[in-house]
């Protein structure tokens, strides 16, 4: 089989995870970034660095966009214009208009867009969806999702409180899962508290809470938090109810390894990284395999819902979403 050629754009934290996963999936990768870090990252994984976006896209099967969100649109449109498939780190774009532009252009050109929502590949959520898909939850009624974790670094970039902060970054995970399980969202109401705008100091605390009303009538409550200290470690929980019962998860439940009395935690073992499963699934699709579990309209829906949450928190009103649009 011919080796996949991947143009990886960006050289930060997410780019590193994706690069490792692409190599693991047997792809050949050229790395391009504007921050001068591409060469070092490429060297580390035996990939090559290229100087321009055009060089990166030339002959590539897919671009993998891991650069800052405000660059996603231009890079995606350039790739689509060249017939290059798009893998894109979340969120697909900074606003709904740009996300729609990417999705529309890709549809017209017949180019696939695979959004990298790694949460769908995390085992607790992948298994949850399998159970729901098999009908074991019955009709969904009410779900609650929580995430609480320390922001890995001082909040960089510049973002206003109006742009949504935690409601559009960390909360995108919960929103994506709620949408994956219960489908289209017709109404969103949200609040945020604490520091939302970036840049912010390290150790800044924030809470976002949203209520989603799905077209099916099901309801989702999503609570997202940046905690002020690195300990305790990130905590993820959900409680999903349906006519067929409940499915619950708490990341504090011990898995294969749990170390007590020291900071080692799990000896660094977490099972396969969700990034590895995700990129493998995208690689299979790019080689003509089955469509991956999420495609362009999922990314668009997540951007629409999180942007609606940001608008709701800013205006204090519930925001209605057109059902047809949400599924476009």
């Amino acid at each position: 089989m011919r080796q996949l050629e991947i143009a990886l754009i960006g050289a930060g934290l997410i780019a590193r995870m994706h690069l490792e996963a692409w190599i693991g999936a047997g792809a050949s990768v050229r790395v391009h970034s504007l921050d001068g870090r591409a060469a070092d990252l490429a060297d580390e994984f035996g990939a090559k660095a290229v100087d321009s976006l055009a060089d990166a896209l030339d002959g590539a099967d897919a671009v993998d966009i891991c650069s800052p969100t405000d660059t996603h649109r231009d890079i995606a449109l350039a790739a689509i214009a060249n017939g290059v498939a798009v893998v894109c780190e979340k969120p697909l774009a900074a606003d709904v208009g740009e996300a729609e532009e990417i999705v529309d252009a890709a549809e017209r050109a017949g180019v696939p867009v695979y959004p990298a929502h790694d949460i769908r590949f995390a085992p607790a959520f992948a298994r949850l969806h399998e159970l729901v898909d098999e009908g074991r939850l019955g009709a969904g009624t009410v779900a609650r999702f929580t995430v609480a974790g320390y922001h890995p670094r001082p909040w960089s970039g510049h973002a206003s409180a109006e742009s949504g902060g935690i409601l559009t970054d960390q909360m995108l995970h919960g929103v994506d899962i709620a949408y994956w399980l219960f489908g289209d969202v017709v109404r969103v109401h949200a609040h945020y508290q604490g520091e939302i705008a970036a840049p912010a100091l390290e150790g800044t605390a924030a809470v976002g809470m949203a209520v989603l009303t799905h077209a099916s009538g099901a309801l989702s409550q999503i609570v997202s938090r940046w905690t002020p200290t690195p300990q305790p470690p990130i905590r993820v929980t959900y409680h999903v109810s349906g006519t067929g019962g409940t499915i619950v998860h708490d990341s504090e439940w011990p898995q294969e390894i749990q170390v007590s009395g020291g900071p080692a935690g799990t000896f660094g073992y977490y099972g396969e990284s969700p990034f590895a499963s995700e990129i493998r699934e995208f690689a299979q699709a790019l080689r003509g395999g089955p469509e991956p579990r999420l495609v362009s309209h999922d990314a668009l829906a997540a951007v629409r819902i999180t942007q609606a949450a940001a608008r709701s928190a800013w205006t204090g009103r519930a925001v209605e979403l057109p059902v047809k649009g949400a599924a476009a």
Partner: protein
Amino acid sequence: MKVAVLSFAHERATTYAQLLHDMPDVQLVVADPDGAPDDPARGRSTARRLGVTYMDSWDQLFALRPDAVVVTSEADRRRELVERATAVGAQVLCEHPLAADEADAEAMVRACEDAGVRLSMASPACFGPAFAAVRREIAEGEVLGGLTAVHGAYNRPYPAGTQDARAGALASNAPHLLDMVDAVLDGAPAEEVYAQSNSILGTEPGVESGALVTVRYAGGTVVSIDCSWGSADTGPTAGGPAMTFIGDRASVEFTAVPRLLGGFDSVTSSERWVTRGDDPYAVMLGEFIGGVRQGSGVGPDGVAGVRTLRITEAARASLRTGQPVELAVPQKVLP
């Protein structure tokens, strides 16, 4: 001490009667003269089954001048019964909602104030030493810092055929969670209420089975609660509320009825879920009777009951409009 349970209309009345009957030094008397539409003799037969003294009329019961009453009638009869209780100086423990509407609830609070009677709400999660510890820590603020957000759930199994079932998930379950928030926020009024519901479980025609409520309080704390009916299991929020209180420094989770033991029960072919066994209703009644004896008020008071009623009524209004409902602040100070 003479204690009266007023009516068996609410499903928990028999639990209360049983628990009070078992308490030393409590002389229990019950009355249920209005009966049930399909069972006018409900009161007498229930009393006989429980082995407790039964009175045929309210007049007879209040002539005994009880020291305390537990009001478990239909919501629209609670005002009249509470007013009669105040006339004989009886302390009151009242089921949620305090009354059928806010005007009645306020009148009841005034009547109790005028008579020097303590009105307490039957909100079991607000009683007991664990919740008191949470409340104390939050008030001191040293561990949590300022309280910014609260989320929680109470998903008890759908009680088919009961007053609560007919009232719906919102009216039946939200007050238990809202009273906890009210206690922690020391009575700060709600400023804005948003609610969404569904009836997918199809429990009662036209009545919601699932509901999420979001409340913003004066002072800025935002609270998001799930008061949906749960499945008939024994999950962590089936036996009592669970709440997470988030401060700007740390957060605390409170589980009213936590699991103590697990395992498997071959007889029922189901997972074991064993709690410590402190029945929350017994704890509540114990504190209530202790308070009556010492002349001190315990649990959420009548004014808290009015605040909670305002929020659930605003939640209803929000369900109709699909938008948040603003509450006037400052609100009237009672009485």
